[in-house]
């Protein structure tokens, strides 16, 4: 059996004039956690819908567990647990009824596990879904997605719009699922804190294109933040080797840079500057720098406090 759970090749999709996805490649191996990062409207949900067979790949291919999800929805979807962005669950059912209803679709449904989760979240099974708060709704939707212990869990913005307490609970439930053997998780989020906590691998999508696709470890090791003090005032953004984004004014500048450190340090010395502070870049800094970046490698300067 192939180790690749998800294989998306050269996928493109347009809606009218808007290009939602542009030549996207994406692969997910069994047992890992994949974070899809991008601004709202970047294309994450469109990509996810293709994986579920809710959109047919018009240009490019999508294979889940080696199969086309559009050709064989029943076979593919029984291995998938899906949490939709808008928590599309019927309001007219009670929580208990939803559990029984969803359970009828999955032979691997574990009601005991579902009950355990309901208790953890202190949800009353007799309550109607329409009477639930936003957070509780997300919790119920999550439970109905993971109770059949799916091989592949796809979560679209699992914590968006939720308060810190509920978010923590949901993250915890997801962590618990991850720790079960062989489960693959793909989740999209614009909350980088949770992406950093959960992901083995991060894919950034911006305007339908993949702007970054690597393991979290690699990102951590190769992106750095440096704070620089120059001898002289710089009237324009200093040109530094391997810099992704430069910001600041006068003599003090901050840089996010990528790659080996030597050439970068050399370019600073050439401009008569010295590094005040240097550390790994946070995921947020990497994301912002990649998202603001235009095509090509020229860094963009944002000048602050003129």
């Amino acid at each position, binding site marked *: 059996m192939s180790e690749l759970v998800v294989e998306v090749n050269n996928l493109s999709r347009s809606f009218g004039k808007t290009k939602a996805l542009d030549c996207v490649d994406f692969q997910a191996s069994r047992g*890992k*956690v994949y974070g899809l990062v991008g601004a709202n409207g970047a294309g994450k949900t469109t990509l996810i819908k293709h994986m579920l067979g809710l959109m047919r790949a018009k240009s490019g291919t999508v294979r889940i567990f080696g199969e086309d999800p559009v050709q064989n929805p029943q076979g593919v979807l029984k291995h998938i647990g899906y949490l939709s962005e808008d928590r599309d669950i019927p309001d007219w059912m009670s929580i208990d009824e939803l559990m029984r209803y969803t359970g009828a679709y999955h032979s691997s449904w574990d009601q005991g596990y579902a009950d355990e989760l309901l208790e953890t979240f202190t949800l009353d099974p007799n309550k109607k879904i329409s009477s639930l708060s936003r957070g509780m709704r997300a919790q119920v939707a999550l439970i109905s997605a993971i109770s059949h212990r799916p091989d592949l869990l796809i979560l679209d913005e699992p914590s968006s719009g939720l308060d810190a307490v509920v978010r*923590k609970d949901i*993250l*915890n439930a997801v*962590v*618990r699922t*991850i*720790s079960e053997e062989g489960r693959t998780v793909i989740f999209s989020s614009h909350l*980088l*804190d949770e992406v*950093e*906590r*959960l*992901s*083995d691998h991060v894919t950034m999508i911006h305007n339908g294109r993949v702007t970054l696709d690597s393991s*979290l*470890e690699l990102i*951590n*090791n190769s992106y*750095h*933040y440096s704070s620089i003090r120059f001898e002289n005032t710089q009237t324009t953004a200093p040109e530094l080797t391997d810099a992704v984004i430069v910001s600041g004014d006068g003599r003090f500048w901050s840089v996010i840079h990528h790659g080996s450190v030597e050439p970068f340090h050399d370019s600073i010395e050439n401009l008569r500057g010295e590094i*005040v*502070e240097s*550390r*790994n*870049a*946070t*995921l*947020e*800094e990497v994301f912002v720098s990649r998202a603001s970046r235009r095509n090509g490698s020229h860094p963009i300067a944002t000048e602050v406090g003129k």
Partner: protein
Amino acid sequence: MNITINTKDGVPIYRQIANQIRYMVASKLLKPGEEISPVRTLALALNVTPNTVVKAYDELAAAGVIFKRRGAGTYISDEQSPLADRERQRIIEARIDTLLAEAHQLDFNAEDLLDLVRERQLQLDAKKQTEKTAAENLDE
């Protein structure tokens, strides 16, 4: 184990975990032979993916700080003394590096720094002494 994670300063999570465990060993908060939380428990407690905890533990195991007993949990290594010493030194050295960098920024040289350190230590000792005598007076 009391470990905190933050995603604000760019240090990879697994390294934060490993560093904190190292610190606890070095400062005798964790004793040799003591059992530490299994991967899953720690992952749930910290709300991070278990893979990260695995990585932290692997690094610590490779450095000899912890070891896994097959099928029966993870423990702090017994042979800690040389490691502990090295670890303590490593931690202090990191602190000193930061101090030196700041000092340089604020225009202190190493000489001034050492004088200041001695001065502050004397003040600290004096303060401790007065507190001690005050407590003794109270007891009488």
